[in-house]
């Protein structure tokens, strides 16, 4: 064969959109039901996104729609991308900015100062903290001889293989933290370990981060389905790397 024309399919586009994460909820927009429609016409792709409320924070909205546009544009065979955010208080502004390729500052004008990099980094740190707490709390429940105060000594090699540990490793890699077995699990985003006396407090702080993200994720999913009846059919259960803690411990502890 000489020339292979790649025919773009809706599946290709949805797969690409699956790499786009809601930074606040740390979940793919495809699982959250935020993709309203995908239409492919030759090399032209039109995607509409939707969010749980008209007033979802515009900076997070921008991160998701601009990431989505980049993801779709990167699919082989895609020529033109029309990406729009529907029913948002800033829809007109954001859609015009995307169409003109105006970038974050060009789109938001005086409301933007530098970039959204630090915002994204803040939520990558929170995502790591939550993944760390899930792994440590799961260990604590599976091995009741351990106490919270001991958790400062746990290394990655102590964690059982499985999706919870894999999720933690991915988020460590994002932050540039070591992923070898000897590396301590309970660290901050810069890799620092708390003093032994501070370990329980560090675990409790991490727990509040995890609870906050989990709670927001559930609420946003519910609101989306309230706002767009039927949207629940487009939502996929949270990945099993994030079981809703706390898990039942009655059986194991009796």
């Amino acid at each position, binding site marked *: 064969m000489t020339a292979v024309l790649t025919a773009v399919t809706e599946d290709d586009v949805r797969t690409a959109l699956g790499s786009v994460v809601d930074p606040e909820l740390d979940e793919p927009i495809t699982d959250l039901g935020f993709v309203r429609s995908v239409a492919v016409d030759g090399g032209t792709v039109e995607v509409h996104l939707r969010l749980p409320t*008209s007033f979802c*924070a515009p*900076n997070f909205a921008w991160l998701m729609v601009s990431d989505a546009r980049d993801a779709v544009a990167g699919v082989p065979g895609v020529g033109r991308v029309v990406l729009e955010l529907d029913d948002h208080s800033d829809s007109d502004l954001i859609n015009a900015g995307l169409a003109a390729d105006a970038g974050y500052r060009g789109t938001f004008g005086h409301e933007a100062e530098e970039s959204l990099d630090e915002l994204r980094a803040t939520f990558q740190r929170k995502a790591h903290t939550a993944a760390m707490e899930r792994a440590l709390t799961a260990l604590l429940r599976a091995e009741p001889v351990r106490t919270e105060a001991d958790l400062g000594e746990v290394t990655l090699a102590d964690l059982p293989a499985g999706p919870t540990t894999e999720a933690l490793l991915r988020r460590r890699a994002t932050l540039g933290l070591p992923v070898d077995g000897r590396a301590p699990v309970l660290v901050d985003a810069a890799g620092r370990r708390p003093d032994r006396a501070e370990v329980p407090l560090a675990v409790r702080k991490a727990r509040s981060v995890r609870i906050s993200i989990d*709670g927001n994720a559930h609420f946003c999913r519910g*609101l989306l389905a309230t706002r767009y009846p039927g949207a629940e059919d487009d939502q996929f259960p949270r990945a099993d790397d994030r079981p809703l803690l706390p898990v039942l*411990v*009655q059986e194991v502890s009796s």
Partner: protein
Amino acid sequence: MYSKDGENYFIVDAHVALWDARPENQLNVHGKQFIDCFYDYHRNLSPESEVWPYEEYLYQGGERLMKDLFTDGYVDHAIFQPARLAEFYAKGFGQTEEAFALSQANPDKLTYNHWFDPRDGERGLDQLRADAERFGLTGVKLYTADWHGDSRGWKLNDPTAYRYFEVCRELGIRNIHVHKGPTIRPLDRDAFDVADVDHVATDFTDLNFIVEHCGLPRLEDFCWIATQEPNVYAGLAVAIPFIHTRPRYFAQIMGELLYWLGEDRIFFSSDYALWTPKWLIESFVDFQIPEDMSEYGPLTTAQKKKVLGLNAAKMYDIPVPAELQLPDADETATGPRQPESADLAMA
């Protein structure tokens, strides 16, 4: 007053509104988007039997408010916390005249708090003085995400805001209710960030800062600030209806608040007319933290009594019958409260 199983609960609803979001009051599409967002919250979190028709939700009126709160809702005293939203609604969202008239007609049942916006500058300072005198203000409700010209938000630690807080101090406005919202300048940063609460609470230790929605969706940042600042309080508006659809999440919210802030600094709020107080109060009195959540201690009856009314009554000097009063907990002023009460560490 609510009574159940021989226990009596004095109820203060610390966050209610009398709003008008009818189409004739909407200035633009954002007025519709705003009330639709509220209505989705209402529909999503309410038991089916408590869902209002959309038309009724747009405007409830004083008569219905009195019935929902005091006749049907067990509330002893309620505090208006109005939102201005002048860019969305011709007469504003919170109906100042109607709410103030109701509170004057029922002074033992209603307290009227008003708002200010530091972006109103010098004129706003004069207005705050006039409002304090007219309304007899002891508290204000601040909405930092309110739009104002081409500005879509402000921070509590903006220099002009500090001038307003100095005037609050001078006028005896001690109770500052803060609602963090979703849009703020610059968009570079997290719009729900509660760090400005930390600054202002440190610099105005004689003022009380009640963070509505207990900082949701940034519960963790809020808890970490509040545990270090003895004058920061948690309002349960928007948090408490999770008790119905997501009781385990609500248990975690309560567990976290009790751990980081303690039982004397949490206020019940229905956020009427987002929700009605009756079912929330009934549910809260019946509520218990699930047994398998061994990281939290059980919720005591005394804690429920404090949250449902005694804490806010104390802050607002609302008289409480002597037999219903409770002493403050013997808790540390800062840092985790009763960390040993229950914990995985003790399992």
